[in-house]
């Protein structure tokens, strides 16, 4: 069973938690050795922070999977909640894409890249949001014993729709053009939504379950960072990164 199913119980919080955000950031920074990984480049730092939402977090509704006997069976005995907004008790948002929108230095394409996995498990996407670099492989897998179709609807890349009828069916796809917010839907299971973001640089992250993120190894400079959420929209901030210390950034979305 996936952790998100039990995690999302948050109701009614109006608190943005900059203190917690800062604490999480310090923990994140302390847990890593930020400047030591790439010996030839000096001065690069991590940009870390937290994404939250203000206002009333509406309790997500339970998904009705009765249209598919398999989906209903594998989720029997638990309530699967709709995932358009995934926030914890303090309004901290998961599945937010944070990335350098302006000012990204020219980045060489890495020689070898791990693929990124978008799985379909228990009739839900796992994870909800994925990000890849241009021409990096996205592996789309069906771990269910029911037919899923993966209908990917970009505006700048090419639309495709693949049928994955069997457990273990997998497809590799790449995207040639940077694009944020590519919608992924299953036309069979209307509750299944995910998003793909494609970047031509490596400076991006997706918020974790507790709303935190870390963009690693950003060279000093002035940047515009954008936070993108599938249903809450976007937020931007200017950030100046110096070699002296890790930068800290927090974003706040307004509940809809």
């Amino acid at each position, binding site marked *: 069973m996936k952790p998100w199913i039990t995690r999302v119980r948050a109701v009614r919080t109006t608190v943005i938690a900059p203190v917690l955000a800062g604490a999480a950031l310090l923990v994140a920074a302390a847990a890593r050795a930020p400047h030591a990984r790439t010996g030839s480049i000096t001065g690069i730092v991590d940009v870390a922070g937290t994404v939250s939402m203000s206002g009333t977090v509406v309790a997500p509704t339970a998904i009705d999977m*009765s*249209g*598919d006997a398999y989906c209903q069976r594998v989720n029997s005995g638990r309530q699967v909640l709709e995932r358009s907004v995934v926030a914890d008790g303090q309004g901290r948002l998961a599945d937010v894409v944070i990335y350098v929108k302006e000012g990204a230095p020219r980045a060489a394409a890495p020689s070898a890249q791990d693929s990124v996995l978008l799985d379909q498990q228990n009739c839900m996407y796992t994870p909800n949001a994925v990000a890849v670099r241009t021409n990096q492989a996205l592996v789309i897998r069906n771990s269910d014993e029911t*037919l899923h179709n993966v209908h990917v609807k970009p505006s700048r890349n090419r639309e495709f729709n693949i049928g994955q009828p069997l457990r*273990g069916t997998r497809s590799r796809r790449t995207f040639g053009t940077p694009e944020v917010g590519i919608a992924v839907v299953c*036309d*069979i299971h209307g509750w299944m939504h995910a998003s793909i973001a494609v970047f031509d640089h490596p400076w991006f992250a997706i918020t974790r379950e507790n709303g935190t993120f870390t963009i690693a190894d950003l060279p000093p400079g002035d940047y515009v960072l954008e936070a993108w959420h599938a249903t809450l929209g976007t937020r931007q901030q200017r950030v100046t990164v110096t070699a002296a210390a890790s930068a800290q950034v927090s974003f706040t979305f307004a509940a809809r």
Partner: protein
Amino acid sequence: MKRMRRLSHGLVLGLLGAVLPAEGARAQAPARAQDSASRAGAVAQDTSGRALYGAGCASCHGVDGAGGGRGGVAFTIPVPDFTDCSFSSREPDADWIAVVHEGGPVRGFDATMPAFAEAFTPEQMQQILDYIRTMCPDASWPRGELNLPRALFTEKAYPEDEAVTTLSAALEGPGRVVNEMLYEKRFGSRNQIEIAVPFGVAELSAGAGWEAGLGDVAIGFKRAVWHSFRSGSIFALGGEVVVPTGRESAGLGSGTWVFEPYASFGQIVAGSGFLQLQGAFEVPADSDKGEKEALWRGVVGWTFAQDRGFGRTWTPMVELLGSRDLEEGATVAWDLAPQIQISLNTRQHVLVNLGVRLPLTDTDLRSSTFVFYLLWDWFDGGLFAGW
């Protein structure tokens, strides 16, 4: 319309099966399918066509193939009814497999139909299709594979729902341009009626001025009396009645009713090739207005498809046309008509054919003619759909 197009490798199995019973290949298919599936990491325990249909198709198309018995799918566009023979018999396996392999857009259909290229092997797709073919319970409907490409002159045996506008223009001698509008409507599993309305402009003789107007309208009926998917053959009998609507004095009409019974035969040859034959008599009601005539036509051709067999089709073909008045001492007139048919749009239901009719005999009396048609298979969608 056209049809018969080759798909690469194993995808052509169904077509080959029409002429060359491929029992050996079929018997091996499940084993290969399992190999491929396990390579991909997929788990397919029952690889029968029915089970594969259940796994890959039934969620949207219904367990029964009619779109019923499916759960609460998230899309609202209608799905086709596989149990409706009128729908499910008329396209060849190659078109179905193209859509299964590449998804709906490969034939200009909705993108909600996904691509299964990575999920099923070509052999599995064929098994699924063989199962879908069992959903039409009436074997009297000739299979779409037998719908051979339409030649410029030779009448095909397959009953059609299409509109064709044909333009012919004399390339030498007195000017002559004829346009014919043809409408064909299929009814039942084997029958077709048609009406052809020609109109044209002609120079009666060099320098004598031009005449323009309606020609002789023809009404026809055709029935595919025998067909065999296994042998790749189809045979039809038909007839036309030509009504003297054209002004005889202007050379636009014959001035008499003419009856034209005919027989047509089509044969798939080696997968993507074909042979079509037609024999006919023309019998004028008023023997003063014209001679009885026998005519025979034959066409051979081959279809090539771009983009791994999924794309535009090119069908070069050549017709041999012969005719002879049924009176003593008459000679046979022979013509040759090389031509090429090309599908224009993604749906492949709008096609053109370009060719020339070259007299082989009486070349001093008969001129070469350029002939062109634009064909719209209106059953497959609007003229501007599926581009």
